[in-house]
């Protein structure tokens, strides 16, 4: 291979590295080498401990991440170990090898070690930015298959939105708002140095979809020591182009030095219960008339208008029928049934389970350690036939190879099997919750059809007005007979080779791989006679990719004189996404032999499509470290330079290299002599930092936008299929985006100030952070006028600002010998604003809802995710000045139920769109209260989101036919309905007068009613009141509905978790030869203390985890989990 030394920085690094090595050999050899490990009383290694020879100031060293040190000293020296937060310790040399030094915590001052940067453990005093670490045990305690959900409410600055499609569904993790306009703002996940970029998954506003989730579900929290959230750019700058959205830094457990082998066994059994549906009404059954017709035998007969199969008529499924009183009636399918409301919670939903078993064994001594772990998870949801099975195997071992070299190797293999994620999105009508509301009257016998959806005589589905009058079978068939499953295999392996060249200079070579593949199968049973027919379907999808990362680091830890401690690293890495194919094969036109699932069983020609998971490569070089003066003032710094493949062009040009610096200052001002040992203020630190992070372009995009490729197929009248090749998005889609030959990286600059204060001997603490992050050079496809022949063009532009405050309050209100009460409160306020887009561009579509009827936009000068819709109530601006500002009533272009006038949409009235607000919350807060009494502990977590819009398709389409409580008003005189005579001469008592004025040009019997209120028009006899069934259907149905009705503020206060733990006393567990036994009971998502989502809509039901997701479609009932965990140590 021909070598050209291009990147200057990297060659400089090589030079420095060589220089250092030369220096090594020059160093004297006559002193004695002393090595050892410093630990605290709980056995945890303490990094950053100053190790000096008593009586000298020079030549000291600092312990490394593993608490290890080595130092060359005269054989009769005394070593002094000191670290803030610990009592200083002096010790002789002994035999000089493997000293084990124990430091005792000094209760008067604070010491906290956090994992940061590339996984280094660092004294929090030296960190110049906000950082939050969550213990692995806290994550596990949430009894949730999803790491993201488990973090909810725990970290200031982090917004978690739960997935809705069952246990596989991915949650949205947003750190300090959205720094990009692109759909994916999930943070980078780093597990022991392995980089994982979670994808976005889920449904959209068009069709329903099943969410198999992203790779986060394949991770195994049982193996985690800690999860560190790197929020700001200064904290994450070392990850450069990967870090724009923040970083979750996960450290897995290691074996600890101990006698013999330790075995732990954790067993959790938790159960999910759907406890509340949307607000369905239980007073009126199917139909539009309050009385029954009778058959020849005198039976009350359910009216045809209760059925959505009203011949060719798309409407039906009404619940404006007779009051539900339980008496026997003749149903549409001819059965005699009690006239009562169904209860989806009882009739359909089941108890979900979360059974997690984790067995781990560990052992170790001063030379090496190991830990092996197996986790088995069996997780089903409240929807039948939906489950996730996970098996995860982990090994981590460390071994000292020599005085210089040591190994740290880990390998994790996880297999996840997911079956039938719950359908979400679209109109939410093919999802159980949405389906039970959409055109399904309240008397629809769900429980009967749950067991009678198959036509027992002919095979296939029951169908038609008498077979499946309420469409329940067609709703349930996809849940119960269509099976979609996915098998994912994830292998993560990492090898660290550590070298301790000299007492102060260490090196690390790290190599790791992430190998992923999945296989998805769709097996749909035909619905025709004998299970034949075009619904029969088999599909096989496979996808694979592999990522590799190799990193080299040299780290110096050195004390200079009495006052300065320097820790500095220099290194580089290369990261390769090697990509891989993804293929899809499917049958067409049904299955020749029903119920057999293989591609050749197809009726029509099978389809095969294939794509690639893209390749990507970056290289990086960096220098970083910190310099501390007198344990008081620390300067953090880092510079990283990236070379990224995705900003290169096929002809060789491209701005593909760029740098990301950061610098910060941490000042522990309580180290000042005047403040030291202050009785009130125990600890105080001020921080300030600035950092840059970024994002490279999407792989392959620079070389595919504007070019040609496969965009689908065309089948001609000979039924010959041709490939279509035209303007392509590179992924099988027709796309008229014009590429850009001069793209640069996206770049964010973040400034952060903070203070950490501890009072009254650390009983009370306050950590406050202010940040302001501006992201520039967004790589955007900006809409262009299609008449020019392109639909959009890719540019670098924009300035997105996230500005906010994070607060963390910690307190120990009570602390006695037996009883302790600890509490934390966190608060987040983030303002995500679009400062500018591109010149001449003021609006950028982020995400749609209700098809394309509403959308969240980035609008210059406004909040990220500003929701606008033309399907809002129109505002009158016509000839009658007195009526200005009122809602407008008129005709709908696609017709109204009963032909009645209804509220006009703004875009149909005057072409206007209405701005409804932002999807971003105003603020978040959460609190965790822990009470411990002797061996008992009680933890209570409450978290809350205030503000932010939710668009609910369930609410909109579910409100059409009188199924929900929101349709009770006006349906009879008792419920406020007006009495009137309709066009047929019938007297009705279900009249409602819409509050608004007629549009100009609404002419009734020659009279233009423009500007007249509907009430006045009723008074003057031009129109009648609108019957309730028509009023409500016209308000929300497809053809005339006002989407604004179902876009509402969504705030809540949730009792997220309550857990009670009990550690059994030694007298108990020792009898059964255990080393420890703990039992805990946990309730999760117990209930909402308060929420304001309309009509009982699940407030945490957005159907994908994209940045601007703000819509639910179908959702789920409210679900709570209760479970118990047994934790045994052998």
């Amino acid at each position, binding site marked *: 291979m021909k*070598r050209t030394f291009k990147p200057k920085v990297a*060659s400089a*690094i090589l030079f420095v*590295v*060589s220089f250092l090595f030369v220096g090594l050999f020059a160093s004297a050899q006559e002193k004695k080498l002393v090595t050892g490990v410093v630990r605290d009383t709980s056995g945890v290694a303490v990094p950053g401990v100053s190790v000096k020879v008593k009586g000298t100031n020079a030549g000291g060293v600092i312990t490394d991440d593993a608490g290890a040190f080595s130092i060359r000293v005269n054989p009769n020296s005394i070593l002094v170990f000191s670290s803030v937060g610990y009592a200083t310790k002096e010790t002789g040399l002994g035999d000089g090898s493997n000293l084990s030094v124990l430091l005792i915590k000094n209760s008067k001052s604070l010491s906290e070690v956090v994992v940061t940067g590339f996984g280094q453990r660092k004294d929090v005093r030296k960190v110049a930015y906000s950082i939050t670490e969550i213990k692995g045990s806290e994550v596990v305690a949430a009894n949730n298959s999803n790491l993201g959900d488990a973090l909810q409410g725990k970290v200031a600055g982090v917004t978690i939105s739960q997935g809705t499609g069952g246990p596989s569904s991915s949650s949205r993790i947003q750190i300090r708002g959205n720094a990009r306009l692109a759909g994916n703002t999930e943070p980078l996940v780093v597990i022991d140095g392995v980089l994982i970029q979670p994808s976005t998954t889920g449904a959209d506003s068009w069709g329903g979809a099943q969410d198999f989730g992203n790779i986060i579900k394949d991770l195994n929290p049982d193996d985690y020591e800690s999860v560190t959230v790197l929020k700001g750019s200064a904290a994450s700058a070392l990850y450069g182009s990967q870090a724009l959205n923040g970083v979750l830094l996960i450290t897995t457990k290691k074996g600890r030095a101990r006698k013999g082998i330790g075995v732990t066994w954790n067993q959790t059994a938790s159960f999910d219960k759907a406890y509340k549906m949307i607000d369905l009404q239980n007073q009126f059954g199917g139909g539009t008339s309050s009385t029954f017709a009778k058959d020849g035998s005198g039976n009350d007969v359910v009216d045809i208008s209760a059925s959505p199969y009203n*011949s*060719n*008529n*798309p409407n039906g499924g009404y619940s404006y029928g007779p009051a539900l009183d339980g008496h026997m009636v003749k149903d549409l399918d001819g059965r005699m049934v009690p006239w009562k409301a169904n209860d989806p919670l009882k009739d359909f939903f089941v108890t979900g389970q979360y059974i997690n078993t984790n067995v781990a064994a560990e052992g170790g001594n001063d030379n090496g350690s190991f830990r092996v772990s197996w986790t088995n998870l069996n997780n089903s949801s409240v929807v039948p036939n939906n489950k996730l099975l996970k098996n995860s195997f982990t090994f981590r071992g460390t071994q000292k190879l020599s005085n*210089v*070299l040591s190994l740290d190797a880990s390998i994790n293999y996880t297999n996840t099997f997911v079956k039938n994620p719950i359908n979400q999105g679209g109109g939410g009508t093919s999802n159980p919750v949405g389906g039970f509301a959409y055109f399904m009257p309240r008397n629809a016998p769900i429980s009967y059809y749950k067991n009678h959806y198959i036509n027992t005589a002919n095979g296939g589905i029951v169908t038609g*007005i008498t077979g499946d009058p309420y469409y329940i079978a067609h709703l349930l068939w996809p849940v119960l007979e269509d099976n979609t499953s996915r098998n994912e295999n994830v292998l993560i392996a990492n090898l660290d080779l550590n070298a301790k060249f000299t007492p102060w200079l260490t090196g690390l070579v790290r190599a790791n791989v992430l190998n992923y593949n999945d296989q998805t199968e769709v097996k749909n049973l035909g619905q025709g006679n004998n299970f034949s027919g075009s619904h029969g379907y088999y599909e096989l999808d496979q996808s694979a990719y592999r990522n590799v990362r*190799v990193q*080299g680091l040299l780290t110096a830890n050195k004390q200079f004189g009495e006052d300065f401690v320097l820790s500095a690293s220099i290194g*580089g890495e*290369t990261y390769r996404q090697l990509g891989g194919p993804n293929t899809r094969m499917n049958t067409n*036109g049904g299955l020749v032999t029903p119920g057999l699932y293989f591609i050749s069983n197809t009726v029509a020609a099978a389809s095969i499509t294939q*794509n*690639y998971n893209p*390749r990507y490569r970056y*290289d990086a070089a960096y220098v970083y470290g910190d310099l501390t003066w007198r344990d008081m003032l620390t300067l953090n710094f880092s510079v990283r330079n990236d070379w990224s*493949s*995705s900003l*290169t*062009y*096929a002809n060789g040009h*491209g701005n593909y290299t760029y740098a990301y610096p950061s610098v910060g200052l941490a000042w522990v001002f309580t180290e000042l002599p005047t403040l030291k040992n202050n009785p009130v203020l125990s600890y105080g630190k001020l921080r300030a930092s600035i950092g840059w992070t970024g994002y490279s372009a999407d*792989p*392959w995009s620079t*070389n595919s936008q504007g070019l*040609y490729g*496969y965009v689908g197929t*065309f*089948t*001609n*009248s000979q*039924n010959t299929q041709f490939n*279509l*090749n*035209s*303007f*392509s998005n590179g992924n099988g889609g027709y796309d*008229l985006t*014009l590429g850009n030959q001069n793209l640069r990286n996206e770049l964010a600059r973040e400034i952060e100030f903070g203070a950490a204060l501890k009072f009254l001997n650390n009983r009370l603490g306050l950590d406050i952070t202010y940040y302001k992050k501006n992201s520039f050079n967004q790589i955007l496809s900006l809409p262009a*006028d299609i*008449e*020019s*022949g392109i639909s959009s*063009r890719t540019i670098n532009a924009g300035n997105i600002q996230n500005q906010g405050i994070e607060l963390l309050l910690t307190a120990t209100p009570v602390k006695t010998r037996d009883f302790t009460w600890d509490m934390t409160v966190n608060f987040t306020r983030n303002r995500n604003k679009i400062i500018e887009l591109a010149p001449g561009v003021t609006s950028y579509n982020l995400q749609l809802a209700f098809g394309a009827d509403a959308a969240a936009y980035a609008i210059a000068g406004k909040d990220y995710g500003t929701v606008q819709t033309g399907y809002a109530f129109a505002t009158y601006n016509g000839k009658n000045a007195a009526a200005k500002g009122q809602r407008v009533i008129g*005709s*709908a272009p696609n*017709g109204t139920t009963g*032909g009645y*006038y209804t509220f006009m949409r703004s*875009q*149909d009235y005057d072409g206007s769109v209405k701005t409804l607000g932002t999807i971003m919350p105003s603020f978040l807060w959460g609190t965790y209260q822990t009470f411990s009494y002797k061996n008992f502990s009680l933890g209570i977590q409450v978290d809350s989101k205030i503000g932010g819009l939710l668009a609910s398709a369930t609410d909109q389409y579910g409100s059409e036919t009188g199924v929900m409580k929101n349709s009770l008003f006006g349906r009879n005189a008792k419920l406020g309905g007006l009495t009137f005579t309709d*066009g047929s001469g019938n007297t009705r008592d279900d009249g409602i007068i819409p509050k608004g004025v007629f549009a100009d040009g609404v*002419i*009734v*019997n020659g009279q233009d009613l423009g500007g007249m209120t509907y009430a006045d028009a009723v008074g003057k006899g031009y129109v009648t009141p609108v019957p309730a069934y028509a009023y409500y259907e016209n308000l929300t149905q497809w053809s005339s509905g006002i989407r604004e009705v179902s876009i509402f503020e969504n705030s809540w206060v949730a009792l997220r978790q309550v857990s009670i733990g009990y550690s059994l006393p030694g007298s108990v567990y020792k009898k059964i030869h255990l080393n420890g036994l703990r039992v805990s009971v946990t309730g999760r998502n117990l209930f909402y203390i308060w929420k304001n989502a309309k009509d009982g809509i699940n407030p945490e039901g957005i159907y994908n985890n994209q940045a601007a997701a703000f819509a639910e479609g179908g959702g789920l009932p409210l679900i709570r989990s209760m479970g118990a965990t047994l934790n045994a140590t052998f």
Partner: protein
Amino acid sequence: MKLYKYSLLLALPLTVLVSCKKSAFVDANVSPSTLASVDPGAQFLYAARSFPNDFEYYYDVYRDLNAWMQYSTGGTGNSAGFNLPGSHFDYRYGNYYTNIGTPLADIPHLISKMSADDQAARVAEGAIASIYMAEAAFYCSDINGSIPYGQAFQARYGGTLTPTYDVQQSIFDTLDTQLKAAITALRSAPAGQKNYGTNDPFYGGDTTRWIKAANALRLKIAMRLMKRNPSKLQSIATEVLADPDQMSSIDDSWVLKVGTTYADAGGNYNPTGFLAAKPMVDFMNAKVDPRLGIFYRKNGAGNYVGSPTSPDVCALPANQALYTAKDTPFSLLQHRLFTPNYDEGDGAGAGTGNGFFPVLTYAEYCFIRADLGARGITGDDPETWYNAGVTASMKFYSARAMDAKITGYSGVADSTISNYLSNPLRGQFDPAKATEYIACQAYIDFFRQPAEAWAWWKRTGFPNTTSTLAWPTMTANGSAVVLPRRASFTLFSTADANYTNQKAAYDAMATDPNFGTSLSDVSGRIWWDMP
């Protein structure tokens, strides 16, 4: 020495880092499935298969034009306001620029990058693309008036992002010249021309048929000038008819024929929920029209019954009861004529026939010539061309119905057609009402081209309440229903890059006193549609 080894080990990744050429990064960033260029035929096929647009069918055709033109009504008849186009009308506009015009406009650029020899062999392909482009631009401008044409589609080639709008008059002139030039190019192209072949789903690259289509299209566009510029219409018609290549059978029809799943019954092409409209059903019933069973399905009782079309009639309690009855008495649209794989629920499962989308059929060509003759613009005999048009229409729909595998349909006999045309109680021509009879038959023929029925209605005034195929007087809440005549326009926001050009174009159109009271006044007219 040990240390030296270790340091080598450590230096390894750093060495890897600094030793890589940019070309390695470039190699990683090229997708194996991206094509640097494509054959012009690929772009033609994409544009051709994009002639129909499923959203245009869903909104424009099924929910607006079919109701306005009284081919069908909604499931509960027509309600007040059914004559409003709504914000979803005019999908043809976006479809033209996005899916048809852009790939077609790429063809000359693809050809221009070829060698001189290859370019010489692509003259015919370029000309065919130009003919289809003319059709698409005409169809778009037909209800939108001024649209960007001369400067359109150029952004990709370094041209403007903000094309100016051309007035309809100049677009029609340009298209006529363009079509004439294409015909000349097709005739005079050097030997050894490449051929779109299967990339041309209209004619399979048949040059002569494309010349015939171009001639027919010239006539069709010129007919729009009937009131604006009758002399120009006459000169174009005379010139076109002097050309030897004229459409002469239904096989010359310009039609996109597609496979079974193209207009999938599970998608937006599905016409479920619509009822046959009374004026069509009554007329066809009375005249024993063999196309009746192709267009509509019998009701449960085995009859063809149309739904009333006037909102006030639909709203009558007696009629509302019929709409909401368990088994509606009204006939439905013949699903498989629109979506051949429609499952009729007869246990036979999904259909296996083929679909079709007429662009300009031989029947339409005949009716144009009949109308030209009847108006004395040409010397064509109106009756001859009327008979040819009706015959072509019946044969065309019959062939398409067979191809679509409409259940129970077995074709039309020649005798049925001649009986129809020779019986004064059926479809026999009435020279005294020549233009009316021609327009009403054209109207029936336009069952699958409701946009053209709309254009003929605007141009000829037929059907109307007194024509042989009579529409009822339509009222809603006691007031007359006014049918739209053009698309509704919405100005870009001022922030839009092309706001100035668009506003100038709209302002200019609004100077026409017949344009309507506002941009959204769809009862107004665009340039060609003179009172």
